[in-house]
C-alpha cells in the first residue's frame, strides 16, 4: 500500500516548492510516485517542469455534461477510470494528477463516489502518493483520499505562520479522514529566527521536522519561472529536504 503524504500550508510559504523537492528526492531513489496537485492557487506542474492539459475538474464536467448522451448501460466507473488515466501525466519516476477547477453548481455526489473507488484502486500502483493540498483541505473533506499517513504543514518562520499550523491541526481533527502524523516544516529560515521558531513550535506542541534556510537558487528560479525539480544536489534546500525525507521514512 502506498504511503500517503499531504503537504499543506498557507499560500506563499513555499509548500509547492517543498512538495517538488520531496518528489525529486523520491524519484532519485526507485520509488514510483503519484503526485497530486490539489491546490488551484498554486502550480505544482510548473514547479516540476511538466505540462498538463486536463484536470479531474474537467473530467467531472465531462461526466456531468455528457451523461445523458452516453450509451445508457455504459459503466460510468470504467469510463471515468479511462478518462482519469488519460489525464495522468506520465513522467520518469512519477505520474502527475491535477485536481483543477472547483465543482459547478450541479450534484457531484455520484461522480465523487466513483472517483473515490477509482483513486483507491489507482493508489495501490504506487509506492508514495504525495499531495500538494490547499490549506482548507477540501479534497479531504470530500474523502477523495481516505487516509493520510503524514500531513506536513509548511509555514514561514513567523508566530502567525506557526499558528496556522496549529489551526490546520484542529481542522484535521474535524475531518473524517484519518491522519496518522502531523509534522511541521519551517521554510525560509534565517539564523536570526532559527531558535525562536524552534521555541514557538515547542510551545504550541508542534513536531518540527525541518527548517529550510532561504535558498538563493530557489529565489532566482522562482523569479525566472523555472522549475525546481532539477535543482543541483548542493542546493541548501535540497540538502535539508534529504534530512526531512529521512525523518519521514522516504
Amino acid at each position, binding site marked *: 500500500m502506498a504511503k500517503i503524504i499531504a503537504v499543506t500550508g498557507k499560500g506563499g510559504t513555499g509548500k509547492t516548492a517543498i512538495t517538488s523537492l520531496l518528489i525529486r528526492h523520491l524519484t532519485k531513489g526507485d520509488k514510483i510516485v503519484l503526485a497530486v496537485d490539489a491546490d488551484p492557487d498554486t502550480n505544482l506542474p510548473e514547479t516540476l517542469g511538466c505540462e498538463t492539459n486536463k484536470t479531474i475538474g474537467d473530467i467531472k464536467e465531462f461526466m456531468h455534461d455528457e451523461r*445523458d448522451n452516453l450509451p445508457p448501460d455504459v459503466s460510468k466507473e470504467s469510463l471515468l477510470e479511462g478518462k482519469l488515466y488519460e489525464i495522468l501525466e506520465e513522467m520518469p519516476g512519477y505520474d502527475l494528477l491535477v485536481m483543477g477547477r472547483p465543482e459547478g453548481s450541479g450534484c457531484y455526489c*455520484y461522480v465523487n463516489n466513483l472517483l473515490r473507488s477509482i483513486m483507491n484502486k489507482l493508489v495501490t500502483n504506487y509506492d508514495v502518493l504525495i499531495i500538494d493540498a490547499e490549506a482548507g483541505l477540501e479534497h479531504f473533506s470530500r474523502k477523495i483520499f481516505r487516509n493520510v499517513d503524514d500531513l506536513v504543514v509548511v509555514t514561514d518562520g513567523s508566530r502567525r505562520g506557526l499558528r496556522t499550523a496549529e489551526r490546520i491541526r484542529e481542522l484535521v481533527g474535524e475531518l473524517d479522514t484519518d491522519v496518522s502524523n502531523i509534522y511541521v516544516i519551517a521554510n525560509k529560515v534565517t539564523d536570526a529566527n532559527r531558535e525562536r521558531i524552534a521555541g514557538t513550535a515547542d510551545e504550541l506542541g508542534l513536531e518540527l521536522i525541518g527548517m529550510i534556510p532561504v535558498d538563493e537558487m530557489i529565489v532566482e528560479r522562482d523569479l525566472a519561472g523555472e522549475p525546481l525539480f532539477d535543482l543541483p544536489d548542493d542546493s541548501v534546500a535540497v540538502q535539508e529536504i534529504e534530512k526531512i525525507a529521512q525523518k519521514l521514512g522516504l
Partner: protein
Amino acid sequence: MADEFPFEISPMFEGERIRKDGMYAELAGPKSKGFELVRAADMDDVEDGRFTLIGPDLSDMEEGSRYPLAMVYKIAGELVEADLESIVERRNHEFQNYIQGFMHLNQRDDVWMRVSKDAIAKGMTSFESVAKAIMMLFKNELPFIEKVEAIYITDMDEVEKEIENARAVYKARDERTRDLHDEDVDTFYGCTLCASFAPTNVCVVTPDRVSLCGAINWFDGRAAAKVDPEGPQFAIPKGDVIDAESGEYTGVNEAAKRLSSGEYDRIKLHSFLEYPHTSCGCFEVVGFYIPEVDGIGWVDRDFAGTAPNGLQFSTMAGQTGGGKQVVGFLGIGVNYFRSPKFIQSDGGWERVVWMPKMLKDKVFDSMPEDIRDKIPTEEEAADIDSLRTFLKEKNHPILERWVEEEEEAPEEEEAPQATAPQTGFAAPQMMQMPSNFMPMMGGGGSGGVKIILKNAKVSIDKVIIKKQD
C-alpha cells in the same frame, strides 16, 4: 489451469496499471484506434478456439510502439442470443485485466490497452496466448457459450474498415436499451448517496425515472448494486403493481417506509399531485403547481430569474428539498422529461405550462410535437396573467381542465377551490404538510366552506392549525 499460458491469470491483477516507464506497447487508446465487439453467431459459423490475427503480432512490435487493436469474438451456443452480446463484451475488460502485464481500459470503440515490458520478457510474444486465455475464461465463466472464436486486428486500414460496422452494432444495441421500461424489469434501485443532506429521502431509480440529481440511471444502479449490494446503490424489488399509471408498487412503498424511517409509506413514481417522489438535496429541476391555471411549471437550477409564481429556483428548492414529500412541488433530474412516463398520472406534458427557455431547448426534441409551441418560457410569460393569456392564445390542452371552473363561476376568474387535493393552495408552507393532510381539506362532503379569493395577493409566513381546546 494457467500453466499453458506464459503469464499469470488472476483477479488480483485487475487494478494493475502499466505506466509509460514499464510499457512495452500501447494498443488502441486515445492516440490510436480500436474496438471490441462480441457477436452472436450460428453454431456452424464458429470454429471453437480458433484465433485469427490480421496485422503484426506482439513479437513484430518494437518497444515503446503504438498500434491499433480491434478484438472481435464470435460466440455460439443453444442459449446464445443477440441480447447477451453486450454482457459478454463487457467481460472482455475484466478478463483482460486478469492477465498479469496486460491493461485494458474503457469499452467498445474507446478501448485502450497496454502490454508491460515484464510480460513480454516472460514470454507474452503473441496475441494468440492472450486471445486463448480470454476464450477460456469466457467459456469457464459464461457456460452458455459453447463455442467461441477470436479475430484480432492490428492493421490500421483493416481496423478503420471494421470500426464502422462495430459502431452500427453499438448504436442498434443502445436503441434497444433505451427501449427498456418500468414494466420490463422486476427490480428498481435505491440510492442513499445524499442521505446526509436529505435524511428522509427515498430515491428510486427505474428505467423510466432517472435519479433526481440526474447522475444515476437504472443501469448505473444495477451495476453498482451488483458489485456491492450493501453500498450506496441497492436493489429495491418492485413487488406487486398497485397502479401502473401513477407508478405505485408494493416494493417501493416498503422501501419508502424503511428509507424515510417511517416518515413516508407511499410513493407514486410518476405522480406529481398525489404521493409524489420525495425531493432530495440536489435535484436539477423543481416542478411547481400553479393553481391559477391548474398546470405545472418547471424551473431548473441554472435559471436565475423568477418563475411566474414569483419564486426562484432556490426558494422552491429550499421548501422542497431535504428529502421531503411535498404535494405541489417535485424535484426531478432533467432526463425525466425524456421519460415516456413523465408525470403521466397528472397528464404528462399536457399538464406542463411553463419552463425557462434554456431548459425547454434542452429537452425540446423529447417533447410531444403538438405541445412544443404551447408551453411558454420567461420570454412569453413572466407572471400569471401573461401565462394565462398565452395558454389561451395557443389553446394549450390545459384549457380543457378550466371548463369546469368557468362553468361554476362564469363571471369571475377564481382560484381553484380548496375542495380537491389536486387544487390545493400554492402557499409553500401549506404544501410542506404531509399529503395525508390534504383530504381533510375536502370537508368530507359535509357542506363545508367554499373559499373564493379574488385578486388576492397573500403572503403567509406560517400557518398553524390547532385543535381548539
